[in-house]
């Protein structure tokens, strides 16, 4: 008790005033954070342990929603497979494509500013609009790509209407929409000191050596950043698959968030949807941790020993 009084008394009246004012000024954010982030977060954790259809009071079920998902949901493991397939290919290929494009746009090419602008366009076009464009490019009947194939007498490709083709087609769309990552990579590339390239050139390094031993290590923190962000976005992909395929054909593009949405709003299973959301949260945390852990081996931070 005495120690506690002693601890409190370390604040001078001026410091107390500062503290009160500080708390007062951060209170709008703090209240917003508590009300609109923490409260819904904890609520969804509670609802994940209940049967809740929005319209009737929740009924406590314990872990039943989680057990049902793992052992009794006819779609859950298919949805997991679809999502991991999509994330596993779209994220590395997307980041890789963005990195290569950024490198090209960082070199002295004709109309560089024009290409830099063009490559960012997919990031500012609304997802609905770009989905419609892809719909008319990829449609098996009327699609522009198949129109060209047909013109040359080649077999057409059922991009979005065949279960085997649908996921790769959506991955292609995801790789196309890497404008934001390209811009971030470009900024990172421009931070790489010219002197390092010059030194490497003097040492006899060719283009590949400079790329491998200078560019990649010095931009590796940004590669890590884009990888993590790409992972989070890809696990939560919804709009484009929903608009292009609605989860079909044959549930082949029923990704995690589509399944969550169906449970929440088509079947009114808010409890189960909340459980799905928490499982997704844990999956993303685990994947992020794995990448962070592995980053010690491949990410170079300047000044580190």
């Amino acid at each position, binding site marked *: 008790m005495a120690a506690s009084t002693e601890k409190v008394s370390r604040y001078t009246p001026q410091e107390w005033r500062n503290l009160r004012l500080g708390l007062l000024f951060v209170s709008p954010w703090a209240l917003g954070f508590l009300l609109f982030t923490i409260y819904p977060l904890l609520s969804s954790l509670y609802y994940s342990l209940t049967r809740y259809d929005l319209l*009737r009071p929740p009924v406590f079920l314990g872990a039943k929603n989680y057990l049902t998902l793992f052992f009794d949901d006819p779609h859950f493991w298919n949805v997991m497979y679809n999502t991991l397939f999509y994330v596993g290919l779209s994220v590395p290929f997307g980041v890789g494509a963005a990195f290569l494009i950024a490198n090209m746009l960082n070199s002295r090419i004709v109309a560089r500013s024009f290409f830099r602008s063009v490559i960012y366009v997919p990031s500012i076009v609304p997802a609905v609009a770009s989905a419609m464009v892809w*719909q008319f490019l990829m*449609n*098996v*009947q009327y699609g522009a790509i198949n129109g060209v194939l047909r013109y040359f007498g080649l077999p057409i490709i059922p991009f*979005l209407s065949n*279960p085997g083709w649908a996921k790769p087609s959506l991955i292609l769309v995801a790789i196309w929409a890497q404008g934001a990552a390209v811009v971030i990579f470009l900024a990172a590339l421009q931070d790489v000191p010219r002197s390092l390239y010059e030194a490497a050139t003097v040492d006899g390094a060719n283009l590949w050596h400079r790329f491998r031993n200078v560019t990649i290590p010095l931009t590796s923190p940004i590669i890590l950043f884009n990888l993590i962000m790409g992972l989070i976005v890809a696990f939560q992909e919804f709009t484009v698959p929903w608009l292009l395929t609605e989860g079909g*054909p044959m549930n082949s593009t029923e990704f995690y968030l589509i399944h969550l949405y169906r449970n929440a*709003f*088509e079947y009114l299973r808010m409890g189960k949807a909340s459980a799905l959301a928490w499982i997704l949260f844990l999956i993303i945390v685990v994947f992020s941790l794995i990448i962070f852990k592995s980053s010690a081996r491949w990410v170079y931070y300047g000044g580190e020993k």
Partner: protein
Amino acid sequence: MTRQSISRRDFLRTSGLVAGGAALAACAAPSPAPAASEGDDSMAAEPQTISWWYAWGNLDPAVETFSQLDSFKAHVGENTTLDYRGSTNNEAVLTALAAGDPPDGGSNMDYPGLWARGVCLPVNDMVDSSEIIDPDNVVDAVWQGGFYGADLIGVPSVESFLWYGLNYNAQHVEEAGLDPDNPPLTWEGVLEWHKELSKFDDGGNVLRIGLDPIDAMAGEPDFIATSYGHTWWNDEEQTFDLNHELMAQGIQMQSEFFRFIGPDNFAGLRSVEGQGTWGAAFNAEVQSMIIEGYWHAGETTIQKPEVAVHNRATWAPVPAFREGAKIMATGPHMVQIYRDGKNPDGMFKVAEYLHTNEPLDIIFHEVGWIMGIETWLTTLDPDTFPGLRFYVDNIGEVTDWIVGRRSPIHWFVNTQLWDLREQVYRDLITPEEAVAELQKRAEDEWEAQGL
């Protein structure tokens, strides 16, 4: 001389307190309006709002028209505004209901699902005291479809008539060398027409399909069951009978239509013609037949008059072993009044008004819809829209009636049926396996929903 200045700290403190006070004041509940004394004339003139949300996208012009009529204003009150919102999706309504701030009423929602969850008011007493709504003047199956047990779960309104017919484009039929005056009445016959009417290019790509067997009403479990002479949902016992040979036969027959076109071709065509939304492919003339109700005639005429002139209708198909059966479904669309709405009486007044001739005429001519109110039906010209006469003239010929969409998990079963049927027509499972799985999923869902 005293210094008239404040420190930066005092300023910040004062402004912080003022801002905080203002925020609290803004959050405080508004003071209630002064209560009018009984008999106060100003009460009658007090502005009111009736909020009505519905999922239809094409009703808005008609509501806009009738809500401006003197007769409407006289009925609901001169100072009453109808705040209607069309194309309102399920999520919006659910969110409003869950938040305790719903509209006063809703239409074209999941009526039994919402009723089963206790968010709607029974309207028996309101209807009993109404001088406008006459249950005896409403087509009986439509009116009875509004009841769950003894409770009337909404006021049957807006559009409620006949749901099943095979509507076809007579021009396509003639071009294919078929006789438009002798349409098929069995699934087997419709499949033959499907093959004749479907068109492919030299590369085998489909240009037109005869019938999308799951477009509009045909995709729902009620339709397969009724067509094959089965009942999958027992309304009294609240049980399912989906794992049945007749359901399997129906799925198998529908699958034949997909196999002829090719599942990938079908999926591609549906995705561009409105994702298989009702009637879009028929209107675009890439589909020659469609199984849906009387509204097809009016909607097609209003949306695509050049296609509608070729429209004709006949009985929806049944399997050959049931040849001669004439199936038909009906059921009410309703104005459901939400328990937490602010103006249930106002909402009921709108429902009452919808039973009068003026709005019925407007909805008929502007949207193409019919409400089964018998005295009004006699005023209706069945030749207004090509194909409509079939429905108006043949009510008495129906042999098998069903009141549709009665199960509180109808839409869940419907979604699962689509999922499993696709597995059948892609030859991954048998129809028998599909119906067994459908039964299991329905029972699991019933239990999981605590219904």
